[in-house]
Structure formats: C-alpha cells, structure tokens
C-alpha cells in the first residue's frame, strides 16, 4: 500500500534558502487563460525551481463548477505555480500564476490583496478570454500591465490594434496636467 501522505516533508534545498535578514515579501500576480504560458513565464523569471500551492474549492465553487458526472469527487483542487526573485537582503518578490477563468476567481481573494500589481498574459488567438479578467482587475483597483505572448502560430497584430481590442487606456484617467502613460502593453 502506498502511504504517499506519510513521506517525510522535504524543505528547500541549501541553494534555495533565503537570507535570514529578509523582512519584506511582495508579490506580483500573472493571470491568464488556460495554456497562455503562465507556468513558462513563472519558470523563466524564478530563481528557484517553481513550486505549486494548491487550494481546495469548497462552498465558493458551488453552483459554478458543474459536478454532474463526477459526484464522487467531493472537492476540487486548483493549483497555482509560483516562483521567487530575491531583490536584496531585506526584500523578496514572489510571482504567482493564476488561472483567469471566472470559476477560479475564488482564488483571487487573498492573492491580490497587497499585490504590487498583475501581469495579464494574453494569446491573440483567444483574446476574448482576457476581457473578463481585465474588467475584474479594474473593478478591484489592481494595477496591471498586459503582456502579449507571441506563439509561432498566433496571428500577429500591431500593438495599437490589440490595445484597441482590449480597450486599454492610452493615458491614465488622472486629472494631473501632464498625463501619465496608460496601461502598459508589450509583446513577448
């Protein structure tokens, strides 16, 4: 019999330990649809092998996740990949990838609280899946940038056209005399 749950817990490897002096941790959230490249982005910026934290969907998922046909499955687990970048001896940045679909929004409570901001990762083949995410971030007042992931097979559009399609403001809506730049967008 397999007692997978009784394996000894293995902590971080020696090379992955944070300095004892680190006092502040901040976070940035990468949000995007299924298969848009969140895990790849987390992995490419992280100094540690990306880790996965899980959350179980409980009453928050009732009525959202259709459990018909999978009645034996009494809880749904959603995984979030994350990585880490040590900024200095006192400051560390964590980068979390989270699914953008509405049924995963229960994860957002706590995730976006205190976050420095979000990176919305979009795929030009499925731009429409980003609309709800952008609206939701605006509602929550989360500062965000848009990153367009260029897949070899995705159609290439000028960034200006994408900005229009995503309704990204060109200048901030502040009242200051010198308008600040609008929502940053870049291809990657």
């Amino acid at each position, binding site marked *: 019999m397999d007692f997978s749950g009784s394996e000894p817990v293995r902590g*971080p490897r020696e090379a992955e330990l944070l300095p004892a002096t680190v006092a502040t941790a901040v*976070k940035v959230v990468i949000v995007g649809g299924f298969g848009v490249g969140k895990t790849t982005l987390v992995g490419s910026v992280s100094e540690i092998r990306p880790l996965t*934290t899980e959350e179980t969907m409980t009453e928050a998922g009732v009525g959202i996740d259709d459990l018909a046909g999978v009645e034996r499955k009494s809880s749904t687990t959603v995984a979030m990949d994350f990585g880490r970048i040590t900024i200095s001896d006192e400051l560390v940045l964590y980068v979390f990838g989270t699914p953008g679909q509405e049924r995963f929004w229960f994860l957002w409570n706590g995730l976006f609280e*205190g976050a420095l901001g979000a990176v919305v990762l979009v795929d030009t083949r499925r731009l429409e899946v980003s609309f709800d995410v952008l609206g939701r971030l605006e509602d929550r007042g989360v500062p965000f940038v848009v990153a367009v992931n260029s897949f070899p097979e995705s159609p290439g559009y000028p960034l200006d056209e994408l900005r229009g399609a995503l309704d990204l403001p060109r200048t901030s809506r502040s009242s200051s005399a010198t308008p600040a730049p609008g929502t940053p967008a870049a291809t990657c």
Partner: protein
Amino acid sequence: MSNQDWEEGGPERLFVITRGRDRQQAAATFDLVTLIVARSRPVPTMQPEHAAILRICGSPLSVAEISAYLRLPNSLVIVLLADLLADHKIEARAPIPLATLPDLSLLEAVIHGLQRL
C-alpha cells in the same frame, strides 16, 4: 470502487489535520507571502504537520512555499501557522498591511532591484 477509499487530498483528511477549525481568523493574519521563521525546535509530541513547519522554516519561508513543501492547501496551512504563532513557536514577518497599496519607495526598490538583475 477504487483501491484507495481514503483520498489523500480529500476533505476528510484536511478536517482531521485542522481538527475541524475554521480558517477565517487565521486568514486575517497570514498572507500568501507572509514570511515565517521558526523560533523553536520541533518536539516529538507535536502534531507532525506542526513539526514539519518548524523543521523547514530555519530560514524564512513564505506561507505559499510552506504549503508547497507540505503539499497541503494554503487555507489549511494558515490554520496550522496560527497555532504555532499563538504558542510563540514561529515569527511572522508581514510588514505590509493587507488591503492597502504599497508605497512608492517599496515599488522603486523592487523596480531597481529587478533592473540590476
């Protein structure tokens, strides 16, 4: 029926580990990136999950990392951390108040740090 009636990730096991306690209160104290540092050594009489947290937190670790290494949901880990904090067995470093935007100097420190990489 599968050959494993006891689902490792199932709610029953999680309920046992937290002894049925609620996470609401703990959620207000711990963020995903609250840094945890052990302030005492694990002892054999401890619940295994508590001992594991003390063992891996010799250097600062975020709540998210603890959840990943223990392979337990974040919401459950914070209940365990609340126990340890109440017993003064861990230190929690969460200087940024939740639900407030970070100040400009912190943003600048992060941006400059990233540019130096």
